[in-house]
């Protein structure tokens, strides 16, 4: 919500583009945010269903496919983002919550998760 408020305050697209490049400058911060979102039960809680080869990820569930070979599986990072934003688009019966479409995570958090998992 913090980041969301900032962006909404922005008067126009230009401001958003600027904010976007500021994030890119802090790629490590973004990955740290993505990891926090992935692991935190009240945020993304991705770990509840997707195993990941991060030593800090304990007792992951297996309702969904493991988070691995992301670059091979999703050569287009935008397609990966879309899959996270609304997995029910491709599979209406999926158990995976539409974390973007239902505004469970902010768009910035989703970007961060994409960067985090794209390393695996």
């Amino acid at each position, binding site marked *: 919500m913090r980041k969301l408020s900032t962006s909404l305050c922005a008067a126009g697209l230009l401001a958003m583009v600027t904010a976007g490049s500021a994030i890119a400058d802090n790629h490590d911060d973004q990955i740290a945010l993505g990891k926090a979102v992935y692991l935190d039960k009240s945020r993304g809680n991705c770990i509840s269903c997707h195993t990941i080869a991060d030593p800090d990820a304990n007792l992951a569930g297996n*309702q969904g496919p493991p988070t691995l070979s992301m670059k091979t599986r999703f050569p287009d990072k935008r397609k990966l983002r879309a899959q996270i934003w609304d997995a029910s688009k491709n599979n209406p*019966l999926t158990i995976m919550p539409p974390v973007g479409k239902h505004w*469970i995570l902010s768009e910035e958090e989703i970007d961060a998760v994409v960067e985090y998992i794209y390393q695996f």
Partner: protein
Amino acid sequence: MKIIRKLALGFAVAAATHITYAADTGFDMQTVDPEADRIALQNYYKSRFPDTELADYVNGIYSVDADSREQWVELEEFPPYEFDVEKGEELFNIAFANGKGYADCFENGGIGIRHKYPYWNKEEGTVKTLEQEINECRVKNGEEALKWSKGPIAQISAYMAWTSRDKVFDIQIPEDDPRAKAAYLEGKKFFYSKRGQLNLSCANCHLQGSNIRIRADLPGPQLGHVTHFPVFRSKWGELGTLHRRYSGCHRDSRSDPLKPQAEEFRNLEYFQSYMSNGLVANGPGARK
């Protein structure tokens, strides 16, 4: 903004018109067939877990997961609900201020009848649950109604379930009142509909997700789901009713949760209990 509102309305209407096309066998009042549903569900689980005997589904997740079954069998040696059954028997037998008791309100003095609940009440035009009739019995005799989720009502229900162990569930959907079938259909629809911010249906976890880990938890199968209620749940550290669990699940989907004994939950219980027809009542149960 007016245009936006019109557009939104457009979507709603477009979505509504789909309903007519969606009507397929078993999904509306003309075609819904509870027996076909029950068989289809059993077949689904037979192919999912071919090694599990049908009768074993009353043991929930322990019917399909050998590892957790071991721990559970140990737990059942000194069942955590034992005290509650004793307490429930005591409460069941304490006479009301007017000298009457629970035994006066139920068929067969309330003994060995759990497996007949819930049932369709034609006079009232609604599904009646055991807990509901426990409270109605109290109110009719000048006592205060009990809170729905835990404590005395769960204990009394546990005792009544205990006296009904091994009786075969036999939920009826009377043909002479179409509202009964409508209530069943509503319950079925509730089970399979995605809801809440997390967009989850009951089926997401308890049908397709049965015995697949959500973090360290394994969701139990929908077949035999209700037979062992009320349950002593380790997570609660106490006994609770089926509707307490319904409210919790509903909340977990990030829906604004319905209250225990809401009509939607009673219809859901009606559907789920019908799915368990042919299985035995084995409440109260112990669950993680």
